[in-house]
């Protein structure tokens, strides 16, 4: 079913107008005077650093791609040059963040593109299952998900969700078992077919196109903060705010920073049980709405004095960008607009939709607290609290283990147990 085209410029304009009417007086009073980028931007980048997964951890996961491709070549006799495994989703768009739950593995989404007729000539399920069979009996555990195989190694801090895919021009649209969404021409060359196991269908998808779209929108976001504010960053603060070398995003990557911080905020709300772990807003929705928002803001000629102001306006505007066709919420995939990312919002007693609006409201309230804070100490406390980074700023690296749990130095070692024996 074709999804109604959403005019984000108009939705953003409406949201902007409502914001000015509702909050104008307060908003004016807290503008530039208190949005001190020189104070807050370094802190936000500390948060960003805190929630980052180190590049070497991601590299280790990427190294596993080659091994996986070799397994497929060996077990399925597909030509090596026709198999390409590369990261997709947050792993490839610099929006991958660390889970706030210690000991929880992070997932690297990867796509396994196969360009070989023998692989997919027997239909989607044979293609999908063959890859699963080939991955069996190796030194990792595999688990079938809806569109991917989850691969987990014992003792490693990550797992890979490997999505089997076929180049889009290799499957005919006339086949009965296809679910096709018309691709946005700008990104259509990257479209692929993946397998939707529950419906046993080929499903059109475009993870690489989606990344390009995020990259384009990130470019939009760089123009949203007016330069005088940036210039207020004196040399000392600039130095402090420089991203660490292995950090993938820079000071001007406003969209990427917003995506990462908002995802972190969502994860912290889940950890505090204020959002449902099952029905929390999914990352692709947060990313899409933020991308659409910065695009509409740029097209509507908006500008903001600081990253804090931009984040706060984004949090206010975000819920208003959900378009309703009657009662049906619509969030089109920007690379294939017929695909509605909110297509499950009316299932399960609307809990996905409720959680989305609960989250945006809490995000707005939290960022407002930050915007109206009057001193550095309060700002620091608020940032630590809302992004769950209590270790800031003196200890950006979360430390594992319990420093109080080590043995007392000088304690004699015991070779046999002497506690809990009766």
């Amino acid at each position, binding site marked *: 079913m074709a999804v109604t085209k959403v005019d984000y410029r108009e939705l953003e304009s409406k949201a902007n107008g409502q914001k000015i009417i509702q909050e104008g007086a307060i908003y004016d009073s807290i503008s530039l005077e208190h949005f001190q980028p020189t104070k807050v931007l370094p802190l936000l980048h500390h948060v960003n650093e805190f929630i980052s997964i180190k590049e070497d951890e991601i590299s280790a996961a990427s190294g596993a791609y080659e091994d996986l491709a070799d397994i497929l070549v060996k077990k399925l006799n597909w030509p090596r040059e026709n198999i390409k495994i590369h990261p997709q989703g947050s792993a490839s768009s610099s929006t991958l963040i660390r889970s706030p*739950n*210690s000991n929880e593995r992070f997932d690297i989404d990867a796509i396994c593109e196969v360009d070989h007729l023998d692989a997919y000539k027997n239909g989607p399920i044979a293609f999908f299952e063959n890859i699963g069979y080939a991955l069996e009996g190796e030194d990792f555990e595999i688990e079938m998900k809806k569109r991917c195989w989850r691969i987990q190694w014992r003792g490693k801090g990550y797992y890979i969700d490997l999505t089997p895919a076929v180049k889009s021009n290799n499957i005919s649209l006339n086949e009965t078992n296809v679910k096709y969404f018309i691709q946005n021409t700008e990104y259509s060359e990257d479209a692929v077919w993946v397998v939707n196991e529950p419906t046993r269908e080929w499903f059109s998808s475009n993870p690489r196109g989606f990344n390009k779209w995020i990259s384009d929108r990130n470019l939009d976001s760089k123009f949203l903060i007016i330069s005088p504010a940036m210039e207020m960053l004196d040399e000392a603060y600039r130095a402090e705010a420089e991203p660490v070398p292995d950090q993938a995003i820079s000071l001007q990557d406003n969209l990427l920073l917003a995506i990462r911080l908002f995802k972190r905020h969502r994860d912290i*709300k*889940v*950890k*505090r*049980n*204020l*959002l*449902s*772990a099952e029905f929390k807003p999914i990352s692709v929705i947060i990313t899409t709405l933020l991308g659409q928002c910065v695009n509409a803001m740029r097209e509507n000629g908006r500008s903001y004095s600081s990253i804090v102001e931009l984040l706060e306006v984004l949090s206010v505007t975000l819920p208003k960008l959900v378009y309703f066709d009657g009662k049906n919420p619509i969030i089109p995939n920007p690379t294939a607009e017929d695909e509605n990312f909110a297509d499950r919002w009316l299932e*399960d*007693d*609307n*809990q996905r939709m*409720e*959680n989305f609006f*609960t989250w945006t409201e809490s995000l707005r309230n939290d960022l407002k607290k930050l915007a109206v804070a009057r001193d550095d*100490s309060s700002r620091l*406390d608020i940032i*630590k609290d809302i992004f769950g*980074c*209590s*270790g*800031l700023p*003196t*200890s950006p690296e*979360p*430390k594992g283990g*319990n*420093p*109080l*749990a*080590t*043995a*007392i*130095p*000088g*304690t*004699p070692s015991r070779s046999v147990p002497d*506690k809990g024996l009766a």
Partner: protein
Amino acid sequence: MTESFQTQAEMAEWCLSSPWLAWDSRKVDSTRGYLSIPIRHPKLSQPRDILGQPQLVVPSGDDHVRPYVKLAHTAILKVPHLDEEGKLCLFADEEELDYFSRTEQLSKVVDRFIDVFIPNWESGNLDEHFYDEPENYWRIYTNRHPTKKSEKPQNLTAYLLSRRENKFVQYDSYRLEDLGVVCSRESNFKTRFLESIKSTRHKCNVLEVPIFCSFQPSHYPSTLEKLKAICRAAIGIKETQKFFNGKNFSVARLIVLRAPNCDYGYYLPAEGKLKVMRPIICEKTDPDWLFGRYEDLNIVNYTNSKIALIGAGSLGSHILHILTHSGVGEIHLIDSDIFKPANIGRHTLGIKSLGKSKASQLSSIKGADTPNCKLVPEHCSAQKWLKQTDISKFNLIIDATGERTVRELIATKRSTQHVTLVTAWMEPFITAAHVVIFYDQTKWNINGLNLWNEAHAFEGWPKDYLLSEPGCSSRFAPYTLDQLSLAAGITAEECLSALSNKPTDQVKIKSWVRGHAYTSIQKYIAERRNWAILPNNIDGAIITRQF
């Protein structure tokens, strides 16, 4: 402990040598059995400066009581590793301090506080530690709330009889005045649990809400609105409204937020007193936790099992004791005997049961203690019960009578009605105890081999190895409770294994055989069979044979 302070002056001298201790004799209070010495520590910035004036607490006069650091009460539930008295837990294993002298202990406590605790607290690295022991902090929180002791609700613990589920559950239950709220959707266990505790009941509506993660104390929902917000996130607006906005306020309500490693109870009294929402302690009481501590994966097999135990005498009663405390779901007890004074020394029943049916008394007394197990008394002979019962409806039959006629009747019955059988008995003086496990095999004779005879470790007992009761024709075997418990232990172990093992056509005989040192001092000495011969230095062995 090799070194200690004899006087306060020695203590003062030692403290003055430490850069971290501020000895002030005017402030030292030794009247309550300990000395408190202020600890100097690096100044902490806001919001970390909540430790108050840390004290090194040194118990005086008793070197076996360990020293510790105490923080201000205002730090409780804000600083992890702090108990309800403000005592800071600095070591994973405090007993290790016992290896050291008093001065070494003091140095190690102060060093750990200054070098490890302070920098980690200041940097925020300890904050996540609240998630390691959420139940400890919740217990402290509920004990401190409300602040007035007179307002503290009596017996308001929630006993959770079911495991955490992934979906919310709502049901009617009761608060027992002498215990707390009994929480379970499952009716049988709850019914027996409620029957076990004789106490005034008050209706209570319970909502169990699965939550994703345990809380840090600063995020406990402290108001009804915050509690509702968590419920809304977990179960949706509609269900939350249904529970909280219902019109039946005449019934008390309990909300249990169930994280994977901690349960948080909030009790809302009846009659619209919603403002006095009370956080309460929750105790896991589900069979998996009670009997398997989540480690024994076979517990599911036990809880779903139905067993018939024929013979509720000395051996049977002890087997029953172990099986009910192991989580078995249902046991039928078959015995026609009446409990007599002479039984007291070897039975699990006591004086209150004199003159009453063993089967009935065991059912009511054990059933009340372990309501997880449905106990069904059958005060009749084994013969009568076997005649009227379809034994294939049981997962296991246990013959603990030691009687030939019962053994033969069961064998006949099993030829047409399939059920696993465990037969257990003891040889005179408990020189040996045997457990025979039949799965598919029904006969005691296999290939001309009589398993009953083959099982025994000794032969040639004199005819009078049984004693007679004075003035009575009734006879009994002389043995003591300590020996009996070994026989009951291996029997129960095999019964539980039989509930989980795959059936086989082999018959297994497991025997506990005592060594020469034990058998040689009994009143009679029988001839030991070859398979049961043990080396002289072995006083007993468990031997398993398959037939």
